């Protein structure tokens, strides 16, 4: 009898906690707290936390020794958001949002950013959700993967999402480089390793690849920055040793990509 009472008390307490949690987070995912991470805004810098085929130590997402999706997180995101606030009229939240393919919550964030996508993989359900996300109007920017092997690994994941997708090289005249800034002369944007190696490339990714996947109407739905590391450029933009030219270019590209995603 006593055990039953204890069990009931635990159950009631659990239900109360669940109700309190639901009240805090039940506002359709946008949050209802005044803390900076819960400020409501039009635009949320959304970083995709994807699963990998390597054993994880972060809720199922990431490498054993580190989370590949969270590279440069959150400093790169927040520095980019500072620039976005200063240079555009986008009403963006000052802090980033991590999104996953576990639930339909991702559909509230029509622009997502993913890094080190050579390590991503998707379950059938995740791939379907990302496919639907992109075909409904979502936009994905991928960054920070280098060389031939990374490309193949990235495409292995991408083929699970969009099996018939064709990747094309973007030209300077493409609209995505002209939404806010006219970016006609682009360069390879290196990661932080440039500071001590002087190399703009990693692995065998000698040439920057500005690539994209389009939908049936010709609109870019996946913007691919291959052989580059824009995230590092944002993250290390305040490092005196990291060249301002790369950082500026990275900010301009990022802003153009966001505005493209918000207009096409």
């Amino acid at each position: 009898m006593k055990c039953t009472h204890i069990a009931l008390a635990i159950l009631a307490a659990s239900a109360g906690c669940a109700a309190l949690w639901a009240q805090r987070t039940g506002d359709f995912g946008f949050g209802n707290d005044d803390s900076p991470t819960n400020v409501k805004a039009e635009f949320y810098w959304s970083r995709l936390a994807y699963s990998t085929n390597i054993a994880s130590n972060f809720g199922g997402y990431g490498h054993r020794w580190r989370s590949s999706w969270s590279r440069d997180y959150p400093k790169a995101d927040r520095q980019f958001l500072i620039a976005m606030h200063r240079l555009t009229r986008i009403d963006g939240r000052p802090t980033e949002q991590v999104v996953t393919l576990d639930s339909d919550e991702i559909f509230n964030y029509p622009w997502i950013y993913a890094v080190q996508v050579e390590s991503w993989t998707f379950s059938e359900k995740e791939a379907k959700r990302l496919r639907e996300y992109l075909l409904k109007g979502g936009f994905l920017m991928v960054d920070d993967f280098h060389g031939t092997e990374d490309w193949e690994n990235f495409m292995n994941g991408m083929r699970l999402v969009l099996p018939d997708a064709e990747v094309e090289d973007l030209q300077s005249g493409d609209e995505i480089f002209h939404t806010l800034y006219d970016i006609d002369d682009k360069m390879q944007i290196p990661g932080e390793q440039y500071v001590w190696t002087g190399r703009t490339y990693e692995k065998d990714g000698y040439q920057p690849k500005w690539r994209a996947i389009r939908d049936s109407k010709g609109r870019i739905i996946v913007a691919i920055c291959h052989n580059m590391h824009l995230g590092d450029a944002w993250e290390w933009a305040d490092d005196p040793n990291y060249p301002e030219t790369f950082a500026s270019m990275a900010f301009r590209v990022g802003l153009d990509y966001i505005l493209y995603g918000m207009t096409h």
Partner: protein
Amino acid sequence: MFQFLFKYPSAVFRKGQFVLLGKLPGWLLVVAMVAAAIGLALLIRWKLRNAAPEVRNWRAWVIWGIQSALVALVLFLLWQPAILVAELSSQQNIIAVVVDDSRSMSIADSEGKTREAAAVAALEGGVLTGLRQRFQTRLYRLGLELTPADGPREIMPVAPATRIGDNLKRLATETSDLPVGAIVLLSDGGQNGAGGGWGISRDVLQALRNRRLPVHTVGFGKEESAHDVEIEDVSIAASAIAEGRISATVSLTQRGYAGKKAKLAVRDGAKQIAGREITLAADGRMQAEPVFFPAGAAGAKSLTFSMETLSGEENLANNTMTRPILVSDAKRRILYVEGEPRWEYKFIRRAEAEDPTVQLVSMLRTSENKIYRQGISDSSELASGFPARPENLFGYAGIIIGSVDADYFTPLQQELLREYVDRRGGGILFLGGRFSLSDGGWGASSLNDLLPTILPQGRGNFHRNAATVELTTQGLNSPITQLLDDPAKNAQRWKKLTYLADYEDAGAPKPGATVLADLHAGRQKLPLLITESYGHGRTAILATGGTWRWQMSEALGDPSHDLFWRQLLRWLVAESPGPVVASMPERLLMDEGRVSLQAQVRDKQFQPATNAHVTAHIVGPQETDAFIDLTPSGSTPGLYETAWTAEKAGTYLAEVTAESAGGRPQELGRDVVTFQREDGVAENFHTEQNRRLLEQLASDTGGRYWTPSELKNLPGDVSYSEAGISVRNTKELWNMPVLFLLLLGLPITEWLLRRKWGVI
């Protein structure tokens, strides 16, 4: 009986003028009557003291009444009453006998005979003979035209339409130099005049009255069908946008099927494009049923609206009605001004990208000093920002104002926006947002009166919280909010739509505004979609910037978001006139080809173009191809008009083009209208006898409505008319049998009463 008692037919009393032939004035008769009544009252009162007790009560006053009436009657006769009445001179006048020979007269509902046969039988059964004893007669048959006939047997019910009004007017005009004394019209009253009019027009009545021509109408046919469903009318716009949705209202009546279900179908050619089951209303009650259907591809179409045939229906031909409509794929440009990058902008653009008839030209403030333009026709368009000149702004058929502060527009631009709606007739849609409506200072701007709501005070009315949507009663019947054809399913679909990402309190709707949808945010219920007519144009508020969730969070392929936006923006621009607006009073010509075509022409500033060269190119059935010029109307600046005759039945297209006059003519604009000539269809409708029309026609002209069984008195009654050659006769009334009966009856009544009361 009437004539036995009153000596003369009732027509004498209806048409004649009462006079007193005695030398003493009429007022003296009244005085004498009153004096006699008073004298009798005094006399009875004086004698009452000595009278029997049985009459010392109300009975005395009954005796006084009878005696006073008797004295008054005698006095009345002494003053020599008479009737002055105009009477046609014998054998000097013509009676026009007009027999309806339209197809509806072939319906066999007059005691087993056709209406035509019954009319012919009535004429041959004594009416013509009776008339010919006193007058000359002329026989006509009346259908589409009025034609003389040699004899009743010549008349066959074959005419494709009945133009009672027009033909009576023509008869009155063409016989103006003949002594026509009256018109006798034998018809079922199935008037289906030019332009679909079902009554007798005022100018026809005026023409008959000018000649004082009485029309005696004789009605044939049943006044009510036992079992019939009839489409009375179909109300539909003259034009629609390709691939859009069209709404029409089908008006119908029925008899004998109250409460039963029947299917209403809409067909484009042989293809059914809409259909739904309706419940039939009470017998004889007009029922209006809205129906929505896709416009389909561009072109001139003849849509068929039909009711399912029910078992036992007496008339199947009145279950179908056709209407011409022009489905246009002309691109209409909408200017979308957005003050900040936001998802709503992206997803509206994506929805409109699928619409071949609307082009979204947008200007988006990406940063404080940068504008990102999309959908522009050339690099100069909107290069300087929002237009500041009417010729640059008025070319757009609609405007969307997103999250933009009112102060972003200069006073000149604000005035231009007001003119855009009021004078140019454009549509403006205001969206909710951080800088929209009250949060954008619009309530304090000069454009406040453009808005369909009274905005709330202050700012802070925009909330990034979830809100669900529910249609209002008006929204259920609006083509803007039709996501599904079935009204009940459509209402449910809206209730189940995923929530909006944000909402704004738009305030209370102004009088005259229509709320199509409400939003529910927590316990609050606020108007979401509000529309209003303003001047020549229209405005609307959609108090959210968060419909994009309908696209992202509904299932892949769900059309709700895109369909709603396409319908909303088509509504915004559908009624916006172009520089040339062609129109015609009647687009459906029933058995006639006369058509008048008008065009309102405006210049680039949308001021009336008074000096334009306007032409119409008309193409129609059997290779009809004509070019005609339109001339200034003289009454309205910028209005040009012409008349033309469509000789053949079928669908016609008229393209009106206006060019500026001068050395180097420039095209101002063009417009297309469609019209249709239908022959032989009108007689399928309103086949019951229209007794009301026949009675009204007779009453308005001084004639009388007759049933076939009363016709033996017709030849006599026709005589009393002021038309033709008539003389005014004096009919003395003193010798009317009814008066002698009264003279005898009153004393006898008194004597009988006294006997009854036991005072004799």
